[in-house]
C-alpha cells in the first residue's frame, strides 16, 4: 500500500483537522500522566510521550458501558432499547504494543459463533494510527518477547515512524488508506523506507528486557499443580491494578442499575485477582486463594489464550510491572516458571 512523507511539525495539525470529521482519541497531558482522551476543540495532543498511563483498550471496551435500557410496565420490567453507539473515531498515536492488543482482543470478541457487537461496532468505526517507538520508552518494555516490535504495524490501520527529518506514513489497511488525504502529497522514496528499516532494527535491538514467554507454554501444560504456584502470590494485595492497566485483560461483570421506573444493564471491567470473581451463590469458590488467582492470570495469558487462539495474551507494554504497588513483576514470574525442570 501507499507510503508518504510528512514534515515533523505537521502531526498535531493533522490530528486537529481530523477532529473536525471524527472523534479523535489522542494522548494528552493530564497532571503528571499522559492518557488517551477524546480531543476537545482546540486541545493539543501530546505526541512527545513515552506511553500512556492507561491502555487504550477502553476505546473499544470501556471501563463501564451500557448494553441496554429497560423500563417498568404493569407486567414487570421490560426491554426498552439496545445501547450500542459508536462514533466515527480515529485513535491517533497509539503505541505498537497497544495496537497489537487490539488484534488479540479481536480474537475473543469477534469469534465466529458469538460476536460481541458492542466491541465490534466500536472497532469497525475506528481507524487506528500507530506511532512507532523509535526508541523503546521504558526499561520495562518487553514487546519483542511476545511477538511484538517497537516499530510494528500489527493492529494498525496507519503506521507513522519518525525517520529523522520526516515522519514516514504507511497505510496498512484500506481503512487507513481512506484517510490518506490528511497526509499531504509527498510520496515516500526508497531511501525513506531503508531509513525506517534501519531505525526499526535499532529500536528492536534496544529492547533489553527479554522473557521466555514462548518457552513456558509446554511447562505450563504440565505444571498446574507445581509447588511454584505457592511462591508467587505472597505479597499480592489483590488490588487488581495489573489487570486494570493491562491492554489485553478483558474480563467483565454484568450488572443492573435502576433509577425510578427505568434501568440499565451495564458491563464493567472485572478482575481475576478479586476473590469474588468466581465465588458462587452457594459459597463455593473454585479459586480459594490468591495462589489460584495468580495461577489463573499466568495460565490465561501464556497457556489458555495460546490453546484457544494460538497467541500469547501479553503485549509486553510493562504497565503491570510499573504499576504494581508491591513490585510483583510478571517477567520474574515467567523466568521462574521457565526454570521448572
Amino acid at each position, binding site marked *: 500500500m501507499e507510503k508518504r512523507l510528512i514534515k515533523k511539525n505537521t502531526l498535531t495539525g493533522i490530528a486537529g483537522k481530523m477532529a473536525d470529521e471524527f472523534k479523535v482519541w489522542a494522548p494528552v497531558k493530564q497532571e503528571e500522566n499522559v492518557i488517551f482522551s477524546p480531543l476537545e476543540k482546540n486541545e493539543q495532543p501530546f505526541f512527545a510521550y513515552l506511553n500512556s498511563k492507561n491502555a487504550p483498550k477502553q476505546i473499544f471496551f470501556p471501563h463501564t458501558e451500557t448494553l441496554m435500557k429497560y423500563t417498568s410496565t404493569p407486567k414487570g*420490567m421490560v426491554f426498552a432499547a439496545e445501547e450500542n453507539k459508536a462514533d466515527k473515531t480515529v485513535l491517533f498515536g497509539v503505541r505498537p504494543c497497544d495496537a497489537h492488543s487490539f488484534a488479540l482482543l479481536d480474537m475473543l470478541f469477534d469469534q465466529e*459463533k458469538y460476536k*460481541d457487537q*458492542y466491541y465490534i461496532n466500536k472497532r469497525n468505526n475506528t481507524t487506528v494510527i500507530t506511532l512507532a517507538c523509535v526508541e523503546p520508552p521504558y526499561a520495562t518494555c518487553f514487546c519483542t518477547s511476545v511477538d511484538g516490535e517497537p516499530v510494528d504495524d500489527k493492529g494498525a490501520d496507519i503506521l507513522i515512524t519518525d525517520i529523522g527529518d520526516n515522519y514516514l506514513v504507511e497505510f496498512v489497511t484500506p481503512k487507513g488508506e481512506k484517510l490518506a488525504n490528511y497526509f499531504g502529497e509527498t510520496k515516500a522514496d526508497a531511501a525513506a523506507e531503508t531509513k525506517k528499516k534501519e531505525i526499526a532494527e535499532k529500536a528492536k535491538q534496544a529492547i533489553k528486557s527479554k522473557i521466555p514467554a514462548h518457552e513456558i507454554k509446554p511447562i505450563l501444560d504440565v505444571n498446574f499443580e507445581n509447588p511454584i504456584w505457592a511462591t508467587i502470590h505472597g505479597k499480592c494485595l489483590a488490588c487488581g491494578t495489573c489487570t486494570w492497566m493491562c491492554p489485553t485483560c478483558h474480563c467483565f461483570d*454484568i450488572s443492573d442499575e435502576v433509577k425510578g421506573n427505568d434501568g440499565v*444493564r451495564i458491563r464493567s471491567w472485572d478482575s481475576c485477582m478479586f476473590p469474588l470473581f468466581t465465588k458462587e451463590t452457594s459459597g463455593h469458590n473454585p479459586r480459594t486463594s490468591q495462589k489460584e488467582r495468580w495461577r489463573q492470570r499466568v495460565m490465561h495469558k501464556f497457556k489458555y489464550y495460546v*490453546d484457544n487462539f494460538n497467541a500469547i495474551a501479553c503485549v509486553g507494554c510493562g504497565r503491570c510491572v510499573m504499576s504494581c504497588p508491591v513490585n510483583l513483576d510478571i517477567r520474574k514470574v515467567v523466568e521462574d516458571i521457565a526454570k521448572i525442570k
Partner: protein
Amino acid sequence: MQNPYIPYPVEVIKIITEVDTKDIKTFRFKFVNPEDEAKFSYIPGQFGELSIYGKGESPIGIASSPTQKGYVEFTVQKAGVVTSALHEMEEGTLMGLRGPLGNSWPIEYLEGKNIVIVGGGFAFTTLRSLINYMIFEDNRKRFGKITIIYGARNPGLLIYKDELEAWQKRDDLNVNITVDKGDATWKGREGFVPAVCKEVAPSAENAVTVICGPPVMIRFTLPVFFDLGFSKENIITSLEMRMKCGIGKCGRCNVGSKYVCKDGPVFSLAELDKLTKEY
C-alpha cells in the same frame, strides 16, 4: 444478527412449587414474540440466562424438552438475588431469557445405546429434559433400555413428582426412586443413590450413564460405575461455575482452557480428566 446479550422477552405462564420447603419452583415461560421460540431452538443439557431487569441474570439448565412445544421450563432453587426475585414472581409477569447456551447432552452419541440416568436432589432438571426427549413417541426407538435412578434427601424434596409417577407406570422405563430417609407415608425405597446404583447394577454393555447431582453423590457414584465396567467416555456429567456472559467472553467460568458456558457444561469423565481440577 441476534445480539447475544439481548434477552428474548418471555412471560411467566405457570409456576409449580416442586418441594415441601417451597424453595424449588418450576417456571414455565411463553415467548412474547412467537417467532422467538424457533430462535430458542435447544437440545437437552443446554442452559439459558434467566434475565430479570433490575436484578440481573442467572444461568439455569433447561428443564423442559424440545419436544414440548409452546413453552420452555426452568426449575430454580431460591438462592441469590436473581433467583429470589424470580421466586417472588407471579404468573403473567414479563421478563427475559437468553440462550440457548452451552453444548448439550451428546444426543447423537447416546442414540442406539442403553442409557442410565442418575440424578440427585435438585440437579435433576436437565436430566428430566433428556428423559422427556428420549421417551417422546417419535424418539423412543432411537434409544435402547433406559434406566433411571433418582434420589433426594427425603420424599418432600423429590421434584417432578407427577412425572416420576407416570414414568414408573411405563413398561419401557426402569425407574428407581430413592430417598435418604423416608417419612410415615413413604412406601418406596430408602438408601443413598450410590448404593441404589450398586443394587440396580445396570449393565455396562453398549451403555452410557448420564450423572447429575451434588458433588458428594457424584464422588461415591463414580466408583460404582467403574466397578460395573463403564469406561470414562461413557460416564457423562454437567459442570456448574459462576457465569455472567454465557458466551465465553467475560472470563470467569474457565476450567483450564475450556469455558464451561461455551465448551461445556456437559463433559465426559474422559474429557474432565484432561482438564485441571479447578471447579
